[in-house]
C-alpha cells in the first residue's frame, strides 16, 4: 500500500480513521509524558509498570466479566500502582537496589498476568477472546468506544501536565531545591507518576504491555537530540509519538494478522536512529563534520605559526 492510498484510507475509511485517531492519541500522550520518565531516569519504572498492568487487566475482566475499556484500564492502573508501592516497599525495607527490584517486580507481575490470561482463556465465555491482544497490541481492534476513552483520559493527563508545568519541571530538575521552595515534592512525584501510568494505560490496547515502555522512552530520546528546551522537547516527542503511532497502526491494520506493538516500535526506532545521526548539534554526523572542520582549522593555524617562527 503506497502513501497516497494509505492517506486516502485514513481520511475516508471509518474504521481506519478510528484506528489512526487512537494511535495518534496514544503517541501524543506517551510521547509528552515519557519525557519526564526519561529526564528523571525512570525508563525502567515505565517498563515495569506496563508489564505489571497485564494481571490488572485480566483480573478486572475475570471479576467483572466485561471488556469495557474503562474497566480494563482501571484494572491496569491499580496494578501499576500496586507495583509502584511494592517497589517503594522493597527498596525501603530490604537491601535490594531499585533496578533489581524493578526486574523482580516486572517478571513477577507479568508472569502472574500470563497465568491469569491462561485461566481466562479456558473460560467458555466468548468475551475473553480479545484479551490476548493486550500482549502485543492490536490497533485494528480499536472501536469508537475505546478511542473515546483514550482521548478522554489522555486529555485530562495532558491538561494536568500543562497546569503543573513549573512544578513538574522543578521536581524533575532539582527535587531538594523544590522542597526548600515549599512544594510538597513527594506529592508531586506521586502525581507525575500517576500521569505516566495513565499514559501507559492509554496505549496498552494499541501497543501491548510488552512494548509499551518503548513508546514512553523512544520519542523522548529522539526529541532530546533536536532541542535544549523542555517545552520544545515535550512537543516534539508528542509529534514523534503520534507519527510512529499512526504509521505503525496503519501498517498493522492493513496487513493481516500483524500485531501493532512491533510495527509502532519499529517506526519510532527509525525516528530515534535518524535523530541520533542527523540532529543538529547533538547528532553524530554533525559532530563528525564539526570535529573535522575544527581539526583542519587548528592544523592550518599551527602551520601558519610554524612558518612565522624563526629557524
Amino acid at each position, binding site marked *: 500500500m503506497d502513501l497516497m492510498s494509505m492517506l486516502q484510507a485514513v481520511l475516508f475509511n471509518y474504521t481506519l480513521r478510528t484506528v489512526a485517531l487512537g494511535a495518534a492519541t496514544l503517541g501524543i500522550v506517551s510521547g509528552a509524558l515519557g519525557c519526564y520518565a526519561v529526564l528523571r531516569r525512570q525508563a525502567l519504572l515505565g517498563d515495569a509498570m506496563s508489564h505489571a498492568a497485564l494481571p490488572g487487566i485480566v483480573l478486572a475482566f475475570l471479576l467483572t466479566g466485561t471488556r469495557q475499556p474503562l474497566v480494563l484500564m482501571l484494572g491496569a492502573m491499580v496494578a501499576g500502582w500496586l507495583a509502584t508501592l511494592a517497589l517503594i516497599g522493597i527498596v525501603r525495607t530490604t537491601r535490594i537496589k531499585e533496578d533489581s527490584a524493578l526486574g523482580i517486580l516486572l517478571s513477577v507481575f507479568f508472569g502472574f498476568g500470563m497465568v491469569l490470561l491462561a485461566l481466562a482463556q479456558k473460560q467458555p465465555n466468548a468475551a475473553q477472546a480479545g484479551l490476548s491482544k493486550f500482549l502485543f497490541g492490536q490497533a485494528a481492534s480499536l472501536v469508537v468506544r475505546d478511542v473515546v476513552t483514550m482521548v478522554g483520559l489522555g486529555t485530562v493527563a495532558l491538561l494536568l501536565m500543562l497546569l503543573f508545568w513549573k512544578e513538574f519541571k522543578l521536581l524533575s*530538575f532539582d527535587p531538594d531545591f523544590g522542597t526548600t*521552595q515549599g512544594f510538597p515534592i513527594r506529592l508531586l512525584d506521586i502525581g507525575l507518576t500517576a500521569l505516566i501510568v495513565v499514559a501507559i494505560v492509554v496505549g496498552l490496547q494499541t501497543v501491548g504491555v510488552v512494548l509499551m515502555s518503548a513508546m514512553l522512552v523512544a520519542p523522548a530520546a529522539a526529541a532530546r537530540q533536536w532541542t535544549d528546551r523542555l517545552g520544545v522537547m515535550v512537543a516534539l516527542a508528542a509529534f514523534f509519538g503520534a507519527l510512529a503511532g499512526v504509521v505503525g497502526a496503519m501498517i498493522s491494520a492493513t496487513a493481516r494478522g500483524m500485531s501493532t506493538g512491533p510495527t509502532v516500535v519499529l517506526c519510532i526506532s527509525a525516528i530515534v536512529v535518524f535523530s541520533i545521526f542527523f540532529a543538529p548539534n547533538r547528532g553524530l554526523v554533525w559532530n563528525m563534520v564539526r570535529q573535522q572542520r575544527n581539526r583542519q582549522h587548528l592544523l592550518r593555524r599551527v602551520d601558519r605559526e610554524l612558518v612565522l617562527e624563526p629557524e
Partner: protein
Amino acid sequence: MHTNTLAIEVTDLTVAYRDNPVLWDVDLAVPAGILMAIVGPNGAGKTTLIKAILGLVPIAAGQTLIYGKPYAVQRRLVGYVPQRGSVDWDFPTSVLDVVMMGRYGALGWIRRPGRRERDLAYEALEKVKMHNFADRQISQLSGGQQQRVFLARALVQDAQVYFMDEPFQGVDATTERTIVTLLQELRSAGKTVVVVHHDLQTVPQYFDWVTLLNVRRIASGMVSEVFTEENLRLTYGGRVTLIGHNSASSMLSEPLSAADHNKG
C-alpha cells in the same frame, strides 16, 4: 553588628541513616549577620546538617529553629545552594530558567514566571557575573559557572539566611574572589550565610564564625576563639596541624601541613 536574635538555633540534633548515626547531639547557635564556615572531614555530616535543618532528611531527635520559629513556617527566609553535583546538568533548560526557579516558591502554585521574574533573575546573574550566559543551555557551563548559576538562583530568592554546600568546590581564584565578595555583601546587608568549606587555610580570611564538625559538634564560635590547632586535631583525628599555631593571623600566612607533621 551582632544582634541578640539567633538566626539559626539547633538543639540536640541527631540524624541517622538506618541505624548509623551521622550527626550526634549537635547544638548550634548562630547569631544573625555573620559569615560562618562549617568544616570537617569527608563524611563528617556537613551536608547532612544542612539538609536536616532544611527538612530534607528526617531527624531522629532534636529541633532546629530559624529566627526562633520552626523552619516549616520560615521557609521563605531561607535560601539553599546545594552541592553542584546534586543535579543533572544535561537537563534541557537554560541558565535564566534555572535562576528563575528561585522565584517558584514566591510565585506559588500554577502561576508561571513572567517579566518580573525574568528581570530579577537577570539581576541576580549580573551579581555573579554570569549575565552573558543567560540563554546558554546549562550543559555548556564549566564547573565554576554552574556554581555561580546556583548562587544566583539562591540570591533571586532574597532570603535572610543562606545555606551553601561547598560553593568554592572546583572554582578558579577569580571566581572564588567573586563569590567571597558576594558573600561579604550579603553579610553587610544583614544576612546570615553558612558555608560548607574545605580549605582550612582561607577560613580566618573569609569567615567570622566557624563550626568544626565530625559527627559531633567539636566547636562553634568566632574564628579567633575556636579555630585552634587543638580543635582541628579533634575534628580531623590528629592528622592535621597548623604550623604557626593558635593565632588566626599567623594561620593566614603559614601553610597548612597535613598528615605526617604530627607523627611521634
